[in-house]
């Protein structure tokens, strides 16, 4: 049984705003019977067509799909369309006190339906998820045939939720959850998104404050460098940071390893790449 929060249970057992709005200003529909979940979202605007005064939904899906839809309709009321568009799937999940990771796709579906509804209202092309029956040609290339999801959509979800494994992508979007044929492509997309983020990170560090620089050095060592050393049975410890001079001590297999000089250069190169080009790394006994 899933470990649902009380808030999820409460919204599942007593969903708010179930039904349809016959004179809705905007309607967004995503998902399908075949996918196992679908959501139809109705939105009503005030006289000036500015703020959302009412929202209702119909959902075919599991407990968290119903709870996510209920949460979404509560969240959008009183917002302008632009404000509503800012709502992320994470916020929907947070509103419910969290969702099991395997069920995050339910929150993504809510956000998608909202985007589709607003895009249709504004007469612009519906955003690309491909997922669903309702919208015309979606941009991007179809990646997951089973659930009809495009690369553009998947990359967006990967980036905004900082996903790093194909399994997570499945939990958030369902892509890869059926035949699995698209998993290699999903892995490529993750690598692409990570690559772009890294590039962005490299372009950024124009002026780092000292504090930020120290933080970045530590993060880079923890996330990029040490895991690689662990893989070879080694490790390092950060001893001191003095301006751009970083002092490290090697541990385990790296300690006293003949090629530790080489390893120090590798660390230096990583830090230059990801933090700042003027970094020097010094090996100390500590």
């Amino acid at each position, binding site marked *: *049984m*899933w470990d649902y929060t009380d808030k999820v*249970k409460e919204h*599942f*057992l007593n*969903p708010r705003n*179930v039904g349809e709005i016959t004179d809705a200003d905007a309607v967004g*529909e995503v998902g399908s*019977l*075949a996918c*196992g*979940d*679908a*959501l*139809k979202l109705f939105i009503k605007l005030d006289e000036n067509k500015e703020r959302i005064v009412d929202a209702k939904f*119909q*959902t*075919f*899906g*599991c*407990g968290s*799909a*119903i709870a996510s839809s209920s949460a979404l309709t509560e969240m959008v009321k009183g917002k302008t369309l632009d404000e509503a568009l800012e709502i992320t799937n994470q916020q929907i999940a947070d509103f419910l006190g969290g969702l099991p990771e*395997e069920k995050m796709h339910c929150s993504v579906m809510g956000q998608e339906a909202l985007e589709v509804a607003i895009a249709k209202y504004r007469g612009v092309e519906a955003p690309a998820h491909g997922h669903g029956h309702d919208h015309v040609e979606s941009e991007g290339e179809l990646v997951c045939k*089973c*659930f009809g999801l495009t690369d553009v959509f998947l990359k967006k979800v990967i980036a905004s939720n900082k996903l790093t494994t194909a399994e997570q992508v*499945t939990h958030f979007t*369902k892509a890869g*959850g*059926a035949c699995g044929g698209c998993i290699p492509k999903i892995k490529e997309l993750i690598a692409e998104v990570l690559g772009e983020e890294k590039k962005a990170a490299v372009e950024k560090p124009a002026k780092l404050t000292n504090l930020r620089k120290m933080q970045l050095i530590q993060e880079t060592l923890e996330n990029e460098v040490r895991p690689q050393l662990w893989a070879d049975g080694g490790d390092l410890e950060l001893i001191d940071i003095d301006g751009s001079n970083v002092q490290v001590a090697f541990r385990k297999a790296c300690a006293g390893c003949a090629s530790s000089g080489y390893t120090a250069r590798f660390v230096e190169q990583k830090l230059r790449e990801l933090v700042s080009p003027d970094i020097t790394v010094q090996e100390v006994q500590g």
Partner: protein
Amino acid sequence: MREIYLDNNATTKVDERVFEEMRPYFCELYGNPSSMHFFGGQVQKKVDEARARVASLLGALPDEIVFTACGTESDNAAIRSALEVFPEKRHIITSRVEHPAVLTQCRNLSKRGYRVTELNVDGNGQLDLSELERLVDEDTAIVSLMYANNETGVIFPIEEAAKIVKKKGALFHTDAVQAVGKIPLNMAESAIDMLSLSGHKLHAPKGVGVLYVRRGTPFRPMLVGGHQERGRRAGTENTASIIAMGKACQLAEQYMADEAGRVREMRDRLERELTALIPNTRINGGGTERLPNTLSIAMEFVEGEGILLLLSEKGICASSGSACTSGSLEPSHVLRAMGVPFTCAHGSIRFSLSRFTTDDDIDAVIEALPPIISRLRAMSPFGREFLNK
């Protein structure tokens, strides 16, 4: 809230009599049956008695019974053994609707160079024996087909299948985890070489299983070490659980008539009432022979997890053929293989009864389920479209 447990194909309650039988073998009679002294000897006697009881239920001989840790181990051991016994043969036949204990293993083996054929089933979940006949050949080491399906209860024509397979010189294994104790089996008059069962499906505890290995069947153990189980499975016996298994089999023998009669009647009543009260339903596997305790009912335009959660609010425990509960996203592989339409497969619920099920339990479901389905259909974008037509 009274709990109404209708998920017996997942696991069963340990029968109190089974528990009483095993209880002394933890803190008092804790000897090792392999020991030479009297203290171990008395445990050995009790293990022998359990072996005889299991054998009796199966119509087998005591020395054909190998105690294992679970049904999964039994399935794995049978298939692995056959491949070692026939190193020159590279072909395995199974079906698309097997339990993962068989299916996952076969799929892994196919990555290691074995040719694996998964037999199809028809809309009722039934096998086509002529397909089996066509596909089994000299290269086939083992055919592994389940006796009865855990989701739909559909019973395969296992004896016929075994005969076909034996003619071609391959070994025949059946995963009978759901069948044992519910329908009569008689190994003495069977062509089956190996058969798996599991304790916790017949009111023994979890953590004990059996592999039946017909006398004369070549066998290579998966676990090696000591000489337990006549060299077919090393490792100190899980004595208390084995003793429980023996008692559970003895009771199952007594209760078989109850399954065939009272339990089946309750299941049939549940099926009749639900189909009458809920429009747009179908019975998965309804057109073929099924276990007396299992009902898999598909309800269009609703999703299984929602149904289960609402049933659970009423104290009713069932299981769904939909994927959302298991974390995978497709409807169950069994329903998919049967070609159950997506509109139904996502909304399939399994009720599985046991000797402890009462008429009150059945009444409670008949009362609770129809309003749950109407409620969810009213919420569903599809339910409305279709039902208003």
